[in-house]
């Protein structure tokens, strides 16, 4: 007998059904923290434009305890977002080939991680040079 009354299940609390969904939501949520950090930097740049008084207020804010905690949180969010984003990178690229062989997704991920680490170190060195 054909069902004339199919049962439709609700999606309520769908993220509770699998840890992978919660990791996915965490990845998406890091974008909010990253967005807030971008706003904080924008505030700093505007303060620089407005003059020494405004810039001192901004510096005092980012150097306060809540300011430091926020920056640590932003660093963690950046690291997690970059790690997960680079893990997904091979999914967004056409299969890469070396001669007749396909380069595996793991290799692409590792290469991207290497490039990320190198760029980060280069930026840190440049920033340290600028501060001196």
């Amino acid at each position, binding site marked *: 007998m054909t069902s004339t009354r*199919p*049962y439709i299940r609700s*999606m309520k609390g*769908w*993220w509770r059904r699998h840890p992978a*969904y919660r990791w*996915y939501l965490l990845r998406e949520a890091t974008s909010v923290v990253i967005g807030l950090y971008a706003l904080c930097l924008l505030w700093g740049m505007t303060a620089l434009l407005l003059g020494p008084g405004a810039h001192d207020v901004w510096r005092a804010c980012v150097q306060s305890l809540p300011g430091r905690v926020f920056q640590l949180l932003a660093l963690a969010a950046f690291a997690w977002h970059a790690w997960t984003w680079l893990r997904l990178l091979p999914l*967004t690229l056409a299969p890469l080939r070396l001669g007749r062989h396909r380069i595996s997704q793991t290799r692409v991920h590792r290469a991207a991680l290497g490039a990320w680490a190198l760029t980060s170190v280069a930026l840190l060195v440049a920033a340290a040079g600028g501060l001196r």
Partner: protein
Amino acid sequence: MSDTRTIVLECLRYHPERDEAPYHQRFEVPFTPEMSVLEGLQYIKDHLDGSLTFRWSCRMAVCGNCGCMVNGEPVLSCQVFLRDYHPGCVRVEPLDHFPIQRDLAVDPSDFLDKLAQVAPYLIPDPVRTPEDGPHRQTPQQMQDYLDTSACINCLLCYAACPQYGLKADFLGPAALALAHRYNADSRDAGRARRMEVMNSDAGVWGCTLVGRCSEVCPKGVDPAGAINRNKPAAALDTLRRLLQSGRTCTS
């Protein structure tokens, strides 16, 4: 038999003519090490309750009929073994995100409609007839679509995709992966026709890269990859249309 043990199968039941809502029913099933979850269901049907409804055909992970949720994971029930769940219990439910037709059988019509929308067949240009002989391609050209051509329409990826459950019109992993399969085939010229569907609201942009579809696929199709590789092409298509409409406006 000395290696026969007993395991509890907790099956979701729903008979529309009788039940207001689904409920779980427990069955004690004797099993041997080589018995799959599907064989456990068949034991119930043959010996305990003949009204239990579920789909299956090949029993060898080829037909894609026996997909269901086992302890919350979308799997082919002929491909997972009762021994691996013992001594725990095995909760068997119909594939998530599809309407339940009866017990473990879901209604796949939505997927079939969406599959038809992406024209999952070769559209050669110019049209070929048998007199033209075989339509050849190199092994390398075949590699471009071989992975995606392994899809058996089992719908496990749909049960793993929360976006499909949340957004009813999303074409979903397998339909989009199959669109990619034909687009990537050197013998096909239907890309522009499929692009209309792939670049629509229901197309590739509905995917937010949760990535579970590729993890659960029993055939290594990687629908998440297939979908996301088409996003640059879809973005270029939007740009082309914008430029074209700009040109028509100014002319």
